[in-house]
Each structure stands twice: as C-alpha cells, then as structure tokens.
C-alpha cells in the first residue's frame, strides 16, 4: 500500500500521536542524558554555596533585574578569555538557583567581577554609574544604600534553596556533612538556624557599603558581586583538565 501524507492529515488522532512522538524523541535525547552523564560538572575545589549575606545580595541582583543586561557566563572563546578571564565552569554555578548565565549583554559579563574593583567603587558605581564611567548607560540604583536590608526571613530563604538542592544545614548530620565538605568555618555560615546572626556578623566584619552602623541592601549586593568567580583557584589546574569534562 502506497504511503501518502493524506492518511496522517485526515486522521487527527494519528497526527497528534506522531507529533508527540517526534517532539518526545527530540526532547528525551536532549534532556535525559543530562541526568545520567556525570562528567558535565567539573570536579574542582573551592565552589561552595553562598553565605547568607551573599545569597541575600543575589536576591537583590535578581530583584533589580541585573541579569537583563549582565550575563554571568564567560564562553570558551579567545576574545572573552582576554577580556573577562577563564571561561565559566558548570561547577561554578552548581549552587545557583536560578542560574544567571543570561543570553544578552548590554553591560559587561559579571561572572568574574569579584575582586576586580574595590568596595568603594561598587558603591559609587551602583549609586551613580556615570560618576565613575562617563560613557555608561546603566541606571542609577541609589536606593540600595538607603534601604536597610530585610533579613528577617533569611532562614526561610535558605530552606527554599535547600529544597532544590543547596546544602544548607538544618540537622546536625547535615551540618557535620558540611564541615566535612567545606570546613568548619564555612559550615557555620551554611547553618539555617543561625542565618540571621551569620548575615549580621559578615556585614559588620566587612562593611561593604562604607557605613558600619547599618546593614543595607548595598552591603548584600556588593558582598555578592565580590565573590563572583573567585571560588576556584585556576592556578591549581592544568589547562587540559577542564577539557576532560567535555
């Protein structure tokens, strides 16, 4: 019997079935391997969840829509490496929910902005970008310095992230696992029960916004910006090492 497309076109049930089949195969082939291919996330030292203050800064980053203009993904191209530094690793955004890779750059990529400029610059630049970079088209964010940081729900925010896989600790066993993996000092910061104290202590110890008397949204955002891309020490690895994960 000769096959004609008419058979499919005049039979809605068959058409629907075949359409789903085609989409299903395409989807499964693209998505399912990601659950099984273990090698995609590079085995590197240093990547850790964000501290409460950094995480709160990250929330402000998403709230203000920074991702609309700034990507956090340095691609393995020569021009990007020369401008931004080592290309981004999958491991570096394993605790990011949601990730901030982005697909459009109106401003520069921020994946490795941590440590590049000092805190004062960030504060000045966020309040009034054109006062330091005259050709900038970034909007002013003066309220970051005026708004006191609301960290009353920090524990709940950490619980939400824990639910999607970030290893913040609630039980003693989870805490001990974090001590094992990240060390005592870091594990203390990932303890959900002391979230507010940890956040306050970090803001006061570092004074990111230049005003030691208050904990502002600026403190949190600058703390976040200053840690971006700084967790992995690339001098420890050979150039070819990361290619093994591809």
């Amino acid at each position: 019997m000769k096959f004609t497309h008419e058979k499919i076109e005049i039979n809605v049930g068959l058409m629907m079935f075949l359409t789903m089949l085609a989409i299903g195969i395409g989807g499964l082939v693209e998505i399912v391997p990601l659950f099984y291919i273990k090698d995609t996330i590079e085995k590197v030292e240093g990547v850790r969840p964000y501290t409460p203050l950094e995480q709160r800064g990250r929330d402000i980053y998403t709230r203000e829509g920074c991702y609309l203009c700034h990507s956090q993904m340095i691609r393995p191209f020569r021009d990007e490496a020369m401008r931004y530094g080592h290309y981004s690793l999958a491991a570096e955004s394993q605790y990011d929910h949601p990730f901030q890779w982005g697909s459009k750059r109106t401003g520069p990529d921020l994946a490795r902005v941590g440590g590049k400029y000092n805190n004062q610059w960030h504060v000045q630049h966020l309040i009034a970008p054109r006062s330091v970079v005259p050709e900038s088209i970034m909007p002013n964010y003066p309220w970051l310095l005026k708004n006191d940081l609301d960290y009353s729900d920090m524990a709940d925010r950490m619980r939400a992230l824990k639910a999607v896989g970030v290893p913040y600790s609630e039980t003693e066993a989870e805490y001990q696992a974090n001590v094992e993996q990240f060390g005592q000092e870091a594990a203390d910061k990932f303890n959900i029960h002391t979230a507010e104290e940890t956040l306050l202590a970090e803001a006061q110890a570092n004074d990111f916004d230049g005003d030691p008397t208050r904990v502002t949204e600026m403190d949190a955002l600058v703390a976040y910006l200053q840690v971006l891309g700084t967790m992995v020490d690339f001098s420890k690895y050979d150039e070819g090492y990361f290619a093994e994960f591809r």
Partner: protein
Amino acid sequence: MADQQQTHGNAVQTTGHAWDGDLQEFNNPLPTWWLWTFYATIVFALVYWILYPAWPIGNSFTKGINTITFESNGEQVTTHWNTRSLFIKEMQSGEQALKQQAYLQKVNDASYEQIQNDPEMMGFVNAKAKSLFGDNCAACHGIGGAPAMVGLFPNLSDDAWLWGGKVDQIEQTIASGRHGFMPAFGATFSDQQLDQVANYVLSLSGAIAADPAKVAAGQKIFQGETGGCYYCHTKQATGMASVGSANLTDAIWTVADVPGAGSDEEKIARVRSVIEKGVQRTMPAWKDRLSAADIKLLTVYVHGLGGGQ
C-alpha cells in the same frame, strides 16, 4: 473562485473534497528544491554524527572521529572534538595567538629601558596595554588614566605619584595592590584645629589667600606632636612614596577636589572634611588575575600616561 479553479483546474489536482459546495483544496506535490534541501539536511546530520560528539549512550555519548591536539603540561594531548579543547588550541597556536606571542616574548625578555627605547615594542605595548587598561583599570582610573571624579581614585595622567612613579614601583602597585590610609582626625582635633590645619595645608601650594594666624597655628599642629601629620607627609609636606602619602605642596589634589571648589571657603571645607574623616582607599592586587607579561605591559603604559619618573 470559479474562474480561479478554471485556470488551475487542468494542471493541479485537488484533494477531491468540496466544503460548503465550492471550497476545494489543491493537492500540490512538494517543490523539488525544498525536497532536495530536506534530503541534504539529513545527509548533513549523518556526516555530523560521525565527525562530532552527538548521540547519548547510557551515561556517555558518541565522541565522533574528529580530534583536537593541544599541549598540556609539556605533553601533547589529543581529545575528541569539543569547544574547550578547541579554545585551548586557539590560545596556544591560533594565528592571532602566535603573532601576539612573538611580541610578548620579545617584551618579556627585554628590560623596561630596552622596551621604552624601542619604537616597535612601544607600538605593541601601547596597542595591547590600551585594551588591557580599558578592560581592567579604566573603570576606576578613567579612560587615559583621568578618573571622572576626584576623590576615590588617583589620576594617572598627571605628574604626581602617590606610590612612586618609577617602573618598579608602578609594577609593584599593579601586581600587589595598595592600601592608602590616613587616620580620621575628627575625634582628635577641635573644630578650630581642623580649620587651622586645613588653612595651613592649602597655603602650602598657594591655593587660597590664607589667614596668616590660622596658617601659623595649623603649621604648629601639622609639624608638632598634636597632629603629627609630618610623620607621613614629611616636614616639607612633599609626601612619601613608601606610605603613599600625598604631596601637599603642588597644585594636584587627589582626595579633596580643591580645583573644583568655587570659593576659598569651599576649598577649606573640602580639605577639612578629608582631615576629619581620613582616607581609606584600596587598589586591588592584579597578579592573580593578569599574567606577568600583561602587568609588564601595563606598567610601561601607565608609566607613559603621566610622565613616569
């Protein structure tokens, strides 16, 4: 409708069904060019699957027969085709990379003096370091080394060097960073004393028509143990490169925006505010972010911006 059917009627078949009495659907075959393009994409996919990583199998995937060879740790490494290996290879032996490496090698082997006396090397330095400066330094120090605002970041295009303007000092500044610090005197000095010291400091460069009585009193605080300003700024008030203290006797102001002030009162207020609040400025260390060669290029470039020493 009837006319149209007539014109096509003999050439093209319809599906044979009429809706609403006269609505019919043509049953054209696919255009040949379209059909062959479709077959070509299938052939392309087959070739692609053979050459490049493509199909998932269990917890691995088909690697494809294409390979890339690059150098890692002194050894030749061959991997299946992937963007990271391709990138490493391009950084090592791409056309642009090789061109640049030849120059970088030359600059790396030369002394600062040799570089500065060689027009060809300087041409390379100025081209490459200009983009390095733009990517890394200009956000604070401004394009060409002139910051958009006075106060937070030193101007590199003038002749004043807080931490020294010799090449080795500039290199040290870039590689290891600096921490500029002046204590706040707001709690130590009375209002009157702040005013007197500000008057004295401004009189040193003749920036204002200062009140001689205040200047004399300010000088006593500055040069005596009450203020002890001379520890860092020196007795001559010309500053010390080892601690990054400013020269107060020239017309260049790096923290208080004196030239931008309209009146003498405003100038005094601005200098007074610096004495009251102190200075906390940091320059990040770049040695973990930039290569030694890049720092060398930037050193020569910055040295040239404002007339290095």
